[in-house]
Structure formats: structure tokens, C-alpha cells
């Protein structure tokens, strides 16, 4: 009996081994290929809606493509040379950078302070934490419309308050710097809470014993904030700086809706608050031009500007870290 069983086992063994080997191969193949399959779906979508438009825009920027003209010619770098001599483009770059600086820097500092306050033992903490996110869930259109009324020349709230302290009515929309401030206020109001929550999440990951030992060493709250909190959440700071740079330089909706007449995207009578994204829109879709080739060149220049400034920002933020630690 025992022999027979042993024989059977011996006879079955190669088949079993083969099956096991096949299974192992399959398993190895699974381990090897399925991760690609999982990420693959993202890359298919990314190629179709990210990479392809990017490449197509690059090609279009080298042509004189116009939506109204069925024929398209290759023009080389003509669009880019024209752009470099286009004073309206440089005006838009200047406006964009100014609005970005006026909105992003106070916004991130405010968010840092706000997050610090929310991280302390407040009463009704969850309520406050949730309420800083409220501006984020309101629609941009509503924000822009309400702020446009607040910044209205004759009956706006801001001028009413300023009038109370004797500062004569400011025509926010007409002035250059004043329109920048008005638009920056909308951006800051909308994004401060969002950044504060990101900082808060990072702050909560800081172990308490760091603060405790610092307190024992005699570090005050301010010192603790600068020497423990800020260095510990630095990756988050870098993240928010990069993200708000990208968002700020692509600014469109707020200044577009700030215009009294939403006919075209001139950004004020003297283009005092026309951003690069608005200028792109003017050239591509603004009532009758449809200069897609030229607009594509603007898009690529905007992309380069964003990359450049992001790198500079990253280096700056990193430098501060190395100096501190």
C-alpha cells in the first residue's frame, strides 16, 4: 500500500511541479506587469488629455493657424519673435507677476499664522477649522461678483470705509495698482484657508516631545514656532509655494469677471489688469481674432515662465532651510 501511494505521488510529482512552476511564472508575471496595468490607465488618459494637447500646442505655435482660415502654414519661430516685440504681452506678464506677488506672499504668511492658531487648544476647534475652508467651496464667480461690488467706485463698501477716514473715493477698476490689489484680495480670500489647512495637517504630524524638550530648554512660543514648526513643515511649504505659483500665474477667472463688460478680455481700458491667460484668451477666442498659432505661442511662453519661477521659488525656499538648520 505504502509503495503504491508513494508511486502515485512520484507519478504525479512532475505534473504537480509543472503546474506549480506555471503558477509561479504567472505570479511573477503578475507581479511584474500588473503595476504597469494599474498605472497604465492613468497614463493613457494623461497622454490623451495632457501630453497630446501639449505637443499639439507646441506644433501649433510654429504655424499661423487661425480658426477662420482653413489653410495653415508653418512659420517657424515667427510667432515667438512677434511675441517678444508685443508690448501688450509684456504688459500682461508684468500684471500677472504683480498680482501674483501681491496675492501669494501675504496669502501664504497669513495661512501659516492661521494654521498655527488653529493648532492650539481652541474652543470649538473643528468649527474654526472647517470655516477657514468655506471660501474654498464658494464658486469663483460668486466671489468675483461680490468683490466687484465691494470695490465699486461710487457705492462700494471699501470706498465707504475709506471715505470714513478721509481717503477720497478710489476708482479700483480704473487704476493700475488699485485693480491689482482688488484682484489679489479675491485670490487671497479664496485660497488662504486652503493653504492653512494644508499647514495644519503638517503641523499635527510634528511629535509633541520636540516642543516639550524645547520648552525645557527655555525656548519661548515664538522661537518654537520658527525653529520647530516651520522647519518641520517645510516640505508642505515647498508644495504650497509651487502650487500657488502655478495657480497664480495662470490667473484668469477673477480678473476676467472683474471687467465691467465681459465682452472680450482686455482687462480694463488700458489693459491695466490683463493677465497672460487673459491675453491668450483674447488672441484665441476674443470675439473675432481666433489667432490660435499666436495664442499657442503665448501658452508656451507662460509655461516657460511658470517653470522658471517655480525653480527660483524652490531654490529660495530650500536655501532658507539650509540657512536655518
Amino acid at each position, binding site marked *: 500500500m505504502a509503495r503504491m501511494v508513494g508511486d502515485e505521488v512520484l507519478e504525479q510529482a512532475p505534473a504537480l511541479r509543472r503546474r506549480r512552476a506555471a503558477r509561479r511564472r504567472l505570479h511573477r508575471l503578475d507581479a511584474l506587469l500588473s503595476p504597469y496595468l494599474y498605472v497604465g490607465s492613468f497614463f493613457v488618459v494623461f497622454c490623451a488629455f495632457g501630453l497630446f494637447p501639449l505637443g499639439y500646442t507646441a506644433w501649433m505655435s510654429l504655424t499661423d493657424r487661425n*480658426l*477662420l482660415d482653413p489653410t495653415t502654414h508653418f512659420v517657424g519661430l515667427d510667432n515667438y519673435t512677434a511675441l517678444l516685440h508685443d508690448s*501688450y504681452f509684456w504688459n500682461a506678464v508684468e500684471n500677472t507677476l504683480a498680482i501674483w506677488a501681491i496675492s501669494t506672499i501675504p496669502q501664504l504668511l497669513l495661512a501659516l499664522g492661521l494654521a498655527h492658531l488653529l493648532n492650539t487648544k481652541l474652543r470649538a476647534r473643528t468649527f474654526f477649522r472647517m470655516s477657514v475652508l468655506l471660501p474654498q467651496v464658494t464658486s469663483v464667480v460668486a466671489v468675483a461678483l461680490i468683490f*466687484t*461690488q465691494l470695490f*465699486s*467706485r*461710487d*457705492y462700494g463698501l471699501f470706498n465707504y470705509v475709506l471715505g470714513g477716514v478721509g481717503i477720497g473715493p478710489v*476708482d479700483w*477698476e*480704473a487704476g493700475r495698482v488699485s485693480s491689482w490689489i482688488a484682484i489679489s484680495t479675491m485670490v487671497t480670500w479664496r485660497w488662504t484657508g486652503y493653504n492653512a489647512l494644508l499647514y495644519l495637517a503638517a503641523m499635527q504630524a510634528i511629535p509633541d516631545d520636540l516642543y516639550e524638550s524645547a520648552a525645557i530648554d527655555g525656548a519661548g512660543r515664538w522661537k518654537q514656532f520658527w525653529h520647530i514648526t516651520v522647519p518641520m513643515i517645510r516640505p508642505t511649504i515647498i508644495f504650497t509655494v509651487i502650487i500657488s505659483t502655478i495657480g497664480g500665474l495662470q490667473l484668469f477667472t477673477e480678473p476676467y469677471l472683474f471687467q*465691467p*463688460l*465681459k*465682452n*472680450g478680455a*482686455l482687462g*480694463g*481700458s*488700458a489693459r491695466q489688469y490683463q493677465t497672460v491667460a487673459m491675453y491668450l484668451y483674447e488672441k484665441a*477666442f*476674443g*470675439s*473675432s*481674432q*481666433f489667432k490660435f498659432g499666436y495664442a499657442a505661442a503665448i501658452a508656451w511662453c507662460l509655461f516657460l515662465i511658470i517653470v522658471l519661477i517655480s525653480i527660483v521659488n524652490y531654490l529660495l525656499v530650500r536655501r532658507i532651510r539650509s540657512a536655518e538648520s
Partner: protein
Amino acid sequence: MKRIHGGRRWQVLAVIGAITAAVAVGLVATTASAKSRDDVTLRVSLFGDFGYHDLYKQYEAAHPGVTIKEEIQEYGPHHTQLAQRIATGAGAADVEAIEVGFIPQFTAQAQNFADLRKYGADGMKSRWLPWKYQQAVGKGGAVVGLGTDVGSLAICYRKDLFAKAGLPTNRVQVSKLWPTWQAYINAGKRYQAKAPKGTFFFDTGSNVYNAMIGQLNPAYYNAEGEVIVATNPSVKAAYNLTMSGIAAGESAGLPAFSTQWNTGYKKGVFATVTCPAWMMGYIQGQAPKTKGKWDIAATPGTGGNWGGSFLAVPKQSSHQDEAADLVKFLTSPASEAYVFKQTGNLPSQPALLKSAPVQSFKNPFFSNAPVGQIFANSALRLKPQILGPHQGDIQNASTAAIDRVQQHKQSPAKSWAQFLKDVKNVAG
């Protein structure tokens, strides 16, 4: 754990299976129903409500097998999307509404639209106001669209402010006050001399300027289709006259459609405003409490128009014949008369403008002024003008130019120079 996982997997699979089956059945069902009948579905794409619902029903009843589907979008997106769909050759509806501000852009590419002469448009030409019909005529005389309504133009004015400033308040006398635009600006000087504090003669220079430009022929384009903004003395004269009004302090400097402009209606900041027929509803909506304080007088010069639309059939439509027939129906005298009754949109056909329902139409909000008669006469007096593809952009640039002066950012001469540069940039 494993068993639960297995169970869940089966649930997921079952749900996916059910969804796939439902979609597949749905697809089969729709294709089957589409194939089973030989029906035509006509898509009509409009901006805002044109008051066509009952007319569709009427048309469908008279044409068995035709189903009409209406799509409504906002003014700006509608026209941008139409331009994209025409350019890419797909997606446009069978009947597309085009506003007068955008019509030059599409008549410039008449090859992309059905020439409605093929469907007898030239035989019906005399139905429409000559300038209205002409606006939709493209290269080689192709008729791109047929006119629906017109905005016409008059001057809405505040009787109470006029009385305080010592100007006549009766609408016949007020109309006599300004036979020309020069007289209008002069009346403004009279108003400003005794004006109630904080009030101005008109809302913004660009509205006055655009009304003047509307009466010119040629204005921005000559018969050869060239841009003549820089060389046309009449354009410069209109600009200069506007500037003299601004210099005399007649302008409230409120950009049209801004929040300040809207508040200006409520607070009675300006005494007159260039007023197309559709502006009556706008004023009522913005300042309902000013009822009875307004009246309406004739426009200076030779009539005017601001707004109004056309219906066109893109060539990419696979039902051009049926769509053209629907366009003819919707713009027929009977339909336009019906729409006027429904919405108050002014017809674009002289016979209707002269008909009793329009001529006897009065508006109680505007002191019972015979608005039908005033607007009809203004539309009837206007002469045709040659438009060009960049009309809208030139107008935007001119508005910015006038605003720069009103906002004290530039001198009239400098602003004019930049305007010419912008025009060259846009249309050159």
C-alpha cells in the same frame, strides 16, 4: 476575510455586468428607434429665450416626422462655440442664432453656411428692413441668415431731472431739442449748467459714440471690405464730438453693464441713456422704483439700432433643406408678429413695424410713451451700413479708448492714437 472578499468581488462583477447590459440595451434601443422611422430631428441653437416654443409645436404639427430640439446657451459662449464648431466642421446645430455683433464674422465665411438665396430669400427681400437684410449678406451676395428681431434705438430720459435742470419734459419737445448729435451734446451743456448735484447728462461716452457710428455709412469698413477707421473723417468727428461732451462734464463715466452703471439707474445719476427696445426691460429690472420718472424720445440723427439677431443654417447640417424651411417659418411675418406679442421683441420687417399692434404699443413704466411707434420709426429711418469681420473688436477697442479718457488715464489725442494702433493690431 477571503470569503467576504470573494463575495464582494462577485457583487462588483454583477453590478458592472448589469450596467454594461443596461447600456448595451439602451444603445440597441436608440439605434433601433432611430432606424425604424425616417424622422428628421432639427437642432435649434439659441442664446436666451426667443419665444419660439409654441411656434415649434405649430411647425411640428404641420410637418409630420419633424422633431425640433432647442438648445439655449449664454450670449458669449454661444457665439464662441459656434465659431469653433464652424471651424472644426462638426457639432453645429441645424439652425443657429447669430447676434448682430457677431454676424460680420460669419458673413466673412459665407462658404460655411447654406446660401438662403437657394431657398428663395432674395424673393422675400422686401419683407425686411433694408439694413437688416444687408447685415447678413456675405461675399458674392450670399445670404447667410434671415433677420429675427431688431433692437432699434431711442433716447430714454428722466423727466424729473430734466425739469429740475430747466429743460422741456414733453417727449415731442425733447425730441425737437436734439435733431442732430451736436444738438444733443449742446443740450447736455444746458443740462449741466443747472443740473441737480451729482447728476450727469449721459451715462458713458461709448454709448453715445456707438449710436453715432451706427448712423454712418461707411463707418469702419468701406465697400471693398477695407478697414478705414483711421482715414474716415466721420469716425474721427464722432469721437471728437463725444470727447467734447466728456470735456463739458456731461458723462457720468459709468462703463456700460458695470455694477456702478446698474446702481446709476437706481440712484438717478444720469438723465439720458441710448435706449434700444430691450433696454426698457433692463431699466425696469434694475430700478423698479423709478417707474413713471422715465420717458422716451427719438434719437438724434437718422434712427439707430443696437442688438437683434439672425437665424442661419450651417453647411455641415445634414438636413439643410428642412432647416432652411424652418428658418423661413420662424422669420415669417406671422411668426415675428407672434413673438412680438409673446416677448416684446421688435420685428425686423417694415410691414409689421407699421402694423397696429406695434404702433399702438405703449409702456406704462415709461410714462405711457408710445414706444412701439418710437422704436418702429427709428428702425425704419436707419440706413444700411457696411460691416466687417472685426466690427466687434473695433467696437471693444473704441469703448476702451473712451473709457481711458473718462477715467483720466489718457488725453483724447493719445487715446485716439492707441485706438488706431489697436485697430491695426486686430484687423490688420
